[in-house]
């Protein structure tokens, strides 16, 4: 509920400021936003269906065991591997992450999962090599994997 209030007040505030500064720009901004929303709404609904199904099928005890606070290195490893090899669009990964949290996964494993998902790409590695060469592409992915694990550890300490 808190979050919703943040979003509503912030969007009302920015719209007002923007409207006072430039009416035309504000309207085209709204249109742009609407277009982006339209683009994601169907895939988003699909993923919500999928998450609801998966959360029903996968028992919470299993999530707690493998991704919960007590899962330690195993939890990190699972999160890192899944995050690195899968190619899930960002906006779709958040409902999944939130579902995992609600079912008992720890903040650190979720942070590792989200970070590797965003920063490490095994599937896209061949493409990355074409752009940056083998050496740089491998190094970037390795370093980011390390960064993801550090982030997970620190998030575990903070939250």
């Amino acid at each position: 509920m808190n979050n919703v209030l943040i979003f509503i007040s912030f969007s009302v505030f920015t719209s007002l400021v923007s409207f006072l500064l430039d009416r035309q720009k504000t309207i085209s901004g709204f249109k742009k936003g609407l277009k982006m929303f339209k683009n994601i709404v169907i895939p988003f609904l699909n993923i919500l269906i999928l998450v609801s199904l998966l959360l029903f099928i996968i028992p919470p005890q299993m999530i707690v065991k493998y991704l919960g606070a007590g899962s330690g290195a195993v939890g990190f490893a699972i999160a890192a591997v899944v995050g690195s090899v899968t190619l899930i669009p960002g906006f779709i990964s958040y409902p999944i992450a939130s579902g995992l949290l609600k079912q008992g996964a720890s903040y650190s494993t979720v942070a590792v999962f989200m970070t590797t998902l965003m920063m490490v790409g095994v599937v896209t590695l061949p493409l990355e090599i074409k752009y940056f060469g083998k050496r740089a592409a491998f190094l970037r992915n390795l370093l980011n994997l390390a960064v993801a694990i550090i982030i997970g550890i620190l998030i575990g300490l903070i939250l």
Partner: protein
Amino acid sequence: MIKKHFQKIKPYIWLFSFAVFSIGSFWLGFDPGKTIYQSFTKSFIEMITFIPFLFIIVGLFDVWFPKEKIEKHIGDESGVKGIFTVIILAMLQAGPLYGAFPVAYILYKKGASIKNIFIYLGAFSTLKIPMLGIEIGYLGLNFTLSRTLVALPLFILVGYFMEWYLKGKNFKVNEV
């Protein structure tokens, strides 16, 4: 002709099957189906209460801070200002990481340093404004803030490391 129609309805197949499944579950009193439907409605409400507002913000950002304008300045600045510019540029983007590679090529062409190219990629993967918005909505402000504040120095460090390691090894970004 049939194929064309199929392409049109393809995105809705999941939704349609799910609707049928849910109605059927309530009709027949199939409890697992009811539970799944309830969990879906919960997450649907969760989403619809903030995502539209997020896109208002993102759309406004897009018209007030056009990426093209910032892209123009890449390569001119160095030091902290250069780092700052690539991070801001990355924050205004959207899409998956492989969509950032062509932009990295543009940065390279414009004379951005190795360090800044990789800082850009780091910022792109973790600081995009639309993504931050969704993250706050789903995982909370605390999580998002901590993750961002931890990640930011780390990927700047990665940038420095990449530059230190790749310098003099004729590193280049290719057009694909």
